[in-house]
């Protein structure tokens, strides 16, 4: 059985969900479903649920497609801890990594018609905390179960 090592090299807390999957969209979707069931169980409000669903999808696609290049021999490691207060999700791929600061801002006039590059923007807009580590291969995201999040959201 495969084991998962936490981001600090320690075993994760027992109440975390842990998964190791091949780089496959269907596998990713099953994980999404499982984590969202947990979010529902903890009565996250509609806005927070939408945010987690969106950020989770973007992060999984990043790992499966852009990180591991759909290579099924490369794994994606997912850890999720959901409480009534917050959802913390960590996703790590085995790809070459990337430099967050090298991703161009897709909202500028010259980049507005670019076909790619909005996933990270959306993750950072919809989650309260998004941190990248292991040279961009690992992302940790936190969404609290309350009102507004993110610095990139436009004013109401």
């Amino acid at each position, binding site marked *: 059985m495969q084991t998962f090592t936490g981001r600090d090299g320690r075993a994760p807390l027992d109440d975390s969900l842990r998964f190791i999957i091949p780089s496959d969209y269907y596998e990713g979707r099953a994980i999404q479903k499982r984590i969202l069931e947990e979010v529902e169980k903890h009565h996250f409000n509609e806005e927070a649920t939408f945010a987690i669903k*969106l950020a989770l999808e973007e992060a999984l696609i990043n790992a499966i497609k852009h990180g591991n290049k759909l290579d099924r021999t490369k794994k994606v490691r997912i850890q999720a801890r959901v409480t009534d207060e917050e959802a913390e999700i960590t996703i790590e791929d085995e790809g070459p990594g990337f430099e967050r600061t090298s991703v161009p801002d897709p909202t500028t006039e010259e980049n507005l018609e670019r076909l790619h590059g909005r996933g990270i923007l959306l993750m950072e807009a919809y989650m309260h905390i998004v941190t990248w580590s292991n040279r961009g291969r690992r992302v940790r995201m936190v969404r609290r179960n309350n009102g507004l999040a993110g610095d990139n959201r436009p004013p109401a």
Partner: protein
Amino acid sequence: MSESPARLNVTPHKDIAVVEFTENKILDEMSVSEIERALAALLEARDRPKILLDFANVDHLTSAALGMLININNRIKQQNGQLRLANIRPQIMEVFMITKLNRLFRILGTRAEALANFE
């Protein structure tokens, strides 16, 4: 070729093709390429295409769908056509605003408003 391919429902209104997404959820990574192919087929069959995308059924979307919409918009512009978006619910509209794509697309409140907006 069918006018209403999988995942889309296409209804003609004068010279405008009104396109509804038939699956209430998700324009996600897996469905996006299928939808893009269907929309591309719709464009190929038309000169100066006028396309209205009705988002009434859409309650979730991702960056992959946004890329697809930009691509379709570019193709329509290349064919001297017009694209309008309508019936986008507030949560989805927020995604357009965060990405500032509300500046790129012509987005109208209702289908009637969008139909009236074509030139």
